[in-house]
């Protein structure tokens, strides 16, 4: 009986901890997305050149690899994640400036924005309500990520539009799988650090948005 009581208490404690991680993750995700949007606005007002996007991606990857994992368990991690998302927002702004100059630019940006929101909300809702553990996707998503990285490096120099389109399509599918994987890990207690959880979900949203922009930009032409 005592053991059963202990199990119930432990189960309840775990559920409370999981809900706390989930709540903190979505709060921080909202704040970082809003901050990114502000920084994108600043970048557009300042009319930063398009190479700023490459600078921001390089800076964000380096911070994500070397700084964030070392600070994620302290309050400094909050500052680092705002630094990363702000930097990516600045880069995004320079891309948006270029898209706004296209004939259907504003329409493409609005459609990509709406599509990204729909994909994220739909998949998160699905992962939160489905009584399934999607952590079996781990090997698949990381293998896919490595293949896509190799393709991106190749296309940095090959500059093939068809490969670029294929990479964008693969990224959308891969990041969608990452949303299921990350959300499921939070719900099932696999991820207990809300800063790292926010970083994962933010990157999925950012990559889906950028890839959708690229696909709609290429496919949405009049020709």
């Amino acid at each position: 009986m005592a053991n059963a009581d202990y199990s119930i208490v432990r189960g309840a404690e775990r559920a409370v901890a999981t809900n706390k991680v989930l709540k903190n993750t979505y709060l921080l995700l909202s704040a970082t997305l809003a901050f990114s949007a502000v920084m994108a606005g600043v970048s557009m007002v300042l009319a930063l050149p398009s190479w700023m996007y490459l600078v921001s991606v390089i800076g964000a990857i380096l911070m994500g690899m070397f700084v964030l994992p070392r600070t994620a368990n302290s309050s400094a991690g909050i500052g680092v994640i705002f630094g990363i998302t702000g930097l990516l927002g600045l880069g995004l702004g320079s891309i948006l400036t270029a898209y706004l100059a296209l004939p259907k630019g504003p329409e493409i940006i609005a459609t990509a924005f709406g599509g990204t929101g729909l994909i994220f909300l739909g998949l998160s809702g699905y992962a939160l309500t489905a009584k399934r553990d999607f952590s079996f996707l781990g090997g698949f998503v990381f293998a896919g990520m490595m293949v896509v990285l190799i393709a991106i490096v190749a296309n940095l120099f090959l500059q093939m539009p068809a490969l670029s389109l294929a990479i964008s399509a693969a990224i959308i599918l891969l990041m969608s799988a990452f949303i299921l994987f990350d959300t499921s890990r939070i719900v099932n207690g696999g991820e207990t650090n809300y800063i790292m959880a926010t970083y994962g979900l933010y990157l999925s949203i950012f990559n889906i948005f950028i890839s959708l922009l690229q696909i709609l930009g290429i496919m949405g032409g009049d020709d």
Partner: protein
Amino acid sequence: MTLFLQITLAVVLVMMLFFLWPTFKHWQEHGPKAKEGDWQAVVLPLALVVGLVVLLIALVR
């Protein structure tokens, strides 16, 4: 400027590949295996994502 940044990005992405390798190995070797019906539960939402993207392309054309 752009070529320099492209080369830097390529170097950083290759570094990221090495960085991801242990995580990939860990999930490949110690990650939970899919049970019956798990892949179906993933393929269905991903197919809906593909459908949505096709719809969005049709909307902006």
